[in-house]
């Protein structure tokens, strides 16, 4: 009963939720979507059937499924929530603190931003340890070193914490407000997208720094692909894709992906192919061979999926063959992408 979108792209399912979606996550056979008013739905990736639901008062900001899809974390403007697949058990913490991000270290441990701190919880919600307060509300989190070290972005620095001490084990300072954090899967690079319309980069080995400035707007979305060689960012009408292979991007120019006026979502397809999906305020979803061509090349999308006007709220890949898109008007759609090598 799948509908044909293009010669080989299919719509696997199409549903609508009664909220404005803000964030999506997909792992294994599950998809979760959370909205601005706190509606959270857990869906079966293959069919879109509802597998679970919860509500986070104050509205959601981020949702993350654990790598095995056994647990879900949702963070929001007034607290956070956890959902367990096994028995549908839900824990909602209305802490009153702004929880901008959540990140799973493994199947059992999740870090949740909570005001100026990050909390590390077990999957039942019991606190294992917490960081000391940062200089501002925490904006993003990422795990390093196989889940032993937690990188925390806030105003003025990215601070790395480990369980044994309240103080950061490493501090990467920068005068400015970090909005988004990306750590290369290789562990070699820490990157922040900043309010001052720049990307700041640290090489973890020696802390040496690099700033990519000159973006027209703040950089609030950053993502490394699975290889760790490519970083995609917003901050301009074009998605910029930087080459982090070898010595890194110093002195190089990015590839520029031109499709949207304002970028509202971007996500790499799992795997090494360099395929990227991006979404725009105008509702279009674009698929890219983002690493093709040479530096400074302006690329055109391989495909454009029409979104009928409402802004794209979030994108997520449920494995390499299924792209999930959520629009501001509540529509969630799953596209089947059959070919492994093409889009």
């Amino acid at each position, binding site marked *: 009963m799948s509908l044909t979108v293009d010669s080989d792209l299919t719509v696997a399912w199409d549903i609508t939720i009664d909220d404005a979606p803000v964030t999506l996550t997909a792992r294994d056979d599950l998809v979760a979507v959370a909205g601005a008013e706190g509606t959270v739905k857990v869906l079966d990736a293959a069919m879109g059937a509802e597998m679970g639901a919860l509500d986070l008062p104050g*509205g959601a900001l981020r949702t993350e499924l654990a790598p095995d899809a056994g647990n879900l974390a949702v963070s929001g403007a007034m607290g956070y929530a956890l959902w367990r697949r096994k028995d549908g058990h839900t824990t909602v913490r209305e802490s009153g603190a702004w929880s901008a991000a959540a990140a799973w270290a493994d199947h059992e441990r999740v870090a949740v931003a909570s005001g100026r701190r990050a909390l590390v919880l077990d999957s039942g919600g019991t606190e294992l340890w917490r960081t000391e307060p940062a200089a501002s*509300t925490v904006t993003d989190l990422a795990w390093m070193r196989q889940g032993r070290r937690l990188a925390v972005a806030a105003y003025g620095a990215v601070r790395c914490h480990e369980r044994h001490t309240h103080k950061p084990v490493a501090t990467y300072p920068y005068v400015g407000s970090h909005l988004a954090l990306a750590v290369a899967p290789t562990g070699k690079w820490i990157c922040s997208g900043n*309010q001052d319309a720049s990307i700041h980069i640290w090489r973890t080995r020696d802390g040496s720094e690099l700033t990519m400035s000159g973006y027209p707007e703040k950089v609030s979305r950053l993502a490394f692909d699975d290889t760790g060689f490519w970083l995609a960012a917003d901050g301009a009408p074009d998605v910029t894709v930087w080459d982090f292979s070898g010595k890194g991007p110093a002195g190089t120019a990015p590839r520029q992906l031109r499709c949207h006026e304002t970028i509202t979502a971007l996500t790499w397809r799992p795997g090494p192919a360099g395929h990227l999906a991006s979404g725009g305020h105008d509702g279009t979803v674009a698929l890219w061979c983002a690493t093709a061509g040479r530096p400074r090349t302006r690329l055109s999308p391989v495909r454009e999926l029409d979104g009928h006007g409402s802004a794209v709220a979030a994108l997520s890949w449920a494995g390499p063959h299924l792209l999930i898109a959520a629009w501001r008007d509540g529509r969630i759609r799953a596209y089947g992408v059959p070919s492994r090598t093409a889009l």
Partner: protein
Amino acid sequence: MTTPDARDERVPVTVLTGFLGSGKTTLLNRVLTENHGMRIAVIENEFGEVGIDDALVLDAEEEIFEMNNGCICCTVRGDLIRILGALMRRREQFDHILIETTGLADPAPVAQTFFMDDEIASQLRLDAIITLVDAAHVLQHLDEVKPEGVENEAVEQIAFADRVVLNKTDLVDEETVAEVETRIRAINAPVQILRAQHAQVDLRKVLDVGAFDLDRVLREDPSFLTETEHQHDTTVTSVGIDVDGELDEDRLNAWLGNLLRTKGVDIFRSKGILAIAGAPEQYVFQGVHMLLVGEFGRAWRESEPRRNRLVFIGRNLDRDELERGFTGCLATAGAAA
């Protein structure tokens, strides 16, 4: 920058400042409870005594961020950026947003947030900064001597205001009210002062007033520029300039750019309506410290004399230097010399 026009669909935002005890909470309660038909979201920085069922009230803790762009006074409010961002993602629509700052808050980072963040600027417009003033206690706050390098917040909040609600006028005599008004005008000559008791002020005069719409300000009070007689021994003052003629755009840009770069720390607010040589429309600008937005407004009418009106509100302003610099931008200035 987005060009505001008749169909500006951005949600207006009012910033409410004023010392503790000036009546902000009373005014806020009125805004939330009175039947004005508007859907209002409130962001509070002061610990909430306000709790109304059908209004959305959000708490925020002030977070001031430097912008790392070489502009030392470019600070923004990180808390407002994230809260306003989340608010605009909701499906329900608001007609208006009201931000209540703490009694000691600096209004500059709040205003600058609306200039510096594109996501906010595209969806929201700063409608007005409303400062509540306690008629009975403000003189004492204005006269308070601060240590070197520390701002007098009362002076600053008045300097930034588009409207002053002069509250608690029932607690003082007419003479004191007049003196307070004189002191307010000495700092901020063009500001509109609304007298009030128990914060009873016509909400239409504080909400969605378009005070950042300059044309309206000058239309309402075209005489402000000449009201500069009563000088007090205050370092924060207004300098108004009113000159006929047309301006050379390049010279104006160079002068204004240099002025804000070098004196922007001391210039709290700047506003103006200018006649640019060769442009059929009025050029309207608004600035907060070093940040400035300008756009062409309505067309000059045929019979209307080409005239330039602008005002600077700030610390240690040199009237002669400002006038000289500005008249040097007139298209005829070179020829006359």
